[in-house]
């Protein structure tokens, strides 16, 4: 099959959705810039014009609210935040408005909105330019949250997000942008709420989010050489969560390591751990381990970044501690 990079896959997904459906439009900082959001929006302005590819002043809350309002009027906006760090400014519109609307109004009016938050870290960008905030959005009811880790999923989940009738937080990671993989040319969807087994195994389950799925696969390959047979689950959707897939795997392996490159405390890894010990405690044969960021802001110096961001070797250590 044809190979595309992760960034190209997003770009194609955006393009095809905008061609397919006149109600889809793109709004946010940098969507017309040649560098601001990687190359993910290249060519869109030329094809669709500035009425549907709307670059904006830095007014995160106002612009996010405008996207929500447009969704209420029947559009399917994709509002883009070039870094998750900037989304704190837009929290009120995301949490108090987009997330609550459908429930609060008794299901009378919904918000078909894609909120794209980009994780952009490393390169000594430090504490305010490195954050991965999936846990916060997964905590808030009313938001779906997806985190693709492959080009195939990047396109498929983007299309599902745009077609979904609810606010979906689509989180992509610039560390994955150059990754290449099979991507069908046609429009296809990857279902929101379904994880996928990337490597089958029987000794231990490694559940990973986004970029960490890539590290987990590397870890599994190295573990295999040492005779440890790890199953890698790329969970893809944080909400709704594919509990069945998780439980099935842990029932088999009895051991679980969760890798999520975000803060540990009250993070997604904590949630998966709690779910498992709440529901299939009897199958557990060892402590559940979390591979996450330490509970500190991101440091600048490369030397510190090196220890700050978890990698395959950290997963391997965690696996070995419970094998």
């Amino acid at each position: 099959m044809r190979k595309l990079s992760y960034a190209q896959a997003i770009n194609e997904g955006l393009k095809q959705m905008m061609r397919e459906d006149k109600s889809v439009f793109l709004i946010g900082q940098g969507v017309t810039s040649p560098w601001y959001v990687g190359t993910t929006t290249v060519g869109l302005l030329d094809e669709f014009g500035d009425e549907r590819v709307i670059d904006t002043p830095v007014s995160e809350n106002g612009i996010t609210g405008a996207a929500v309002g447009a969704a209420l009027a029947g559009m399917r906006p994709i509002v883009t935040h070039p870094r998750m760090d900037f989304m704190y400014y837009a929290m009120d519109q995301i949490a108090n408005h987009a997330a609550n609307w459908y429930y609060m109004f008794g299901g009378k009016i919904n918000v078909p909105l894609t909120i794209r938050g980009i994780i952009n870290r490393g390169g000594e960008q430090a504490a305010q330019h490195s954050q991965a905030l999936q846990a916060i959005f997964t905590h808030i009811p009313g938001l779906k949250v997806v985190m693709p880790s492959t080009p195939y999923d990047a396109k498929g989940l983007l299309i599902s997000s745009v077609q979904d009738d609810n606010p979906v937080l689509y989180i992509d990671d610039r560390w994955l942008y150059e990754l290449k993989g099979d991507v069908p040319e046609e429009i296809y969807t990857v279902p929101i709420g379904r994880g996928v087994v990337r490597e089958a195994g029987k000794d231990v389950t490694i559940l990973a989010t986004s970029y960490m799925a890539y590290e987990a696969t590397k870890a599994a390959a190295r573990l295999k050489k040492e005779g440890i047979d790890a199953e890698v689950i790329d969970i893809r959707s944080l909400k709704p969560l594919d509990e069945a897939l998780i439980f099935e795997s842990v029932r088999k392996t009895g051991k679980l390591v969760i890798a999520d490159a975000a803060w540990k405390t009250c993070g997604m890894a904590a949630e998966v751990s709690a779910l498992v010990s709440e529901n299939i405690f009897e199958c557990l044969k060892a402590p559940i381990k979390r591979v996450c960021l330490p509970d500190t802001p991101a440091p600048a110096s490369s030397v510190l970044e090196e220890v700050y961001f978890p990698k395959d070797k950290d997963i391997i250590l965690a696996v070995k501690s419970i094998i």
Partner: protein
Amino acid sequence: MKQCSNPITMELVKGIPTTVLWKIYMTMLKIRMVEEKIADLITRKEIICPCHLYIGQEAVATGVCTALENNDYVFSTHRSHGHYIAKGGSIKLMMAELYGRVTGCSRGRGGSMHITSPLVGLPGSSAIVAGTIPLAVGTALAFSIKKNGGVSVAFFGDGATDEGVFYESLNFAALKKLPIIFICENNLYSTHMHISARQLNGNIYKKAQIFKMPGIQIDGNNVLEVFQAASEAIEDARNGKGPTLLECMTYRWRGHVGPNWDIDKGLRSKEEVEWWVDNCPLKRLEEFLLKENILSESKKKQISKQVNEEIEEAIEFAKESPFPDKSEVLNDVFKS
């Protein structure tokens, strides 16, 4: 500040059909009577959810919404009843909502601060100060992309202009020449705080200038002045001339929330409240219509009776409606 007690003049009714004037009168009366009734129901603990009454501000919602089409969108606030009624929302469904019943416009999940009527162009109201201002901008953006001629309206209070998102919204709307009207109902207070304790320069309409947007201050207790100013702004918006900020000077008679009058707490004076009660927007319109023989005593009675019946019916409907089933608590988080 704009003088808010100029008499209503014949000049203002020029071109307005009598039936429209009746409708305006009826809408204002309906809001007034509904709110008085709700005040009573709260006192009697029939209604539990926090209600921010609109009494005293009826001319604003009425003047603006009368100038709109059904397809135009209006976004409301915590003080939502007036906008909902003026835009044509069903009193039955609203009353059931305030009673927390499953037949309510929001299935009992929203209460007074979250009423909705998508079919008449009210996608909802928010309890977050300034929260719906960007939403209305987004709706205007949608209309402008769709080129469907729709106009969007954001209702908000003077307090909302203290929030940064108000400015972000004005900037973006002006920049993109969106079909939106920003209606600031300046009732001088944000909860317990007078505007002079919050802004050095109380003239909110002037804030429009810095975005190259027309900003106009009007007597928000003169419903015909509101109607005329809104009509012009709406026409401009519909014709691609961009947004307008209308600052409507008005006053809420009751306290910030609930039926109390909120005097004697050291927050506002009896004299101030009395001045505004004297300057009642409903009374001003009624007296004018009667004086000019646009409204007869018998027509007046007929309208009042009709409104009264509608309200009684709504309350009955609400009281007879079932509460939501407990299982409803988990429903409608996501649309499937």
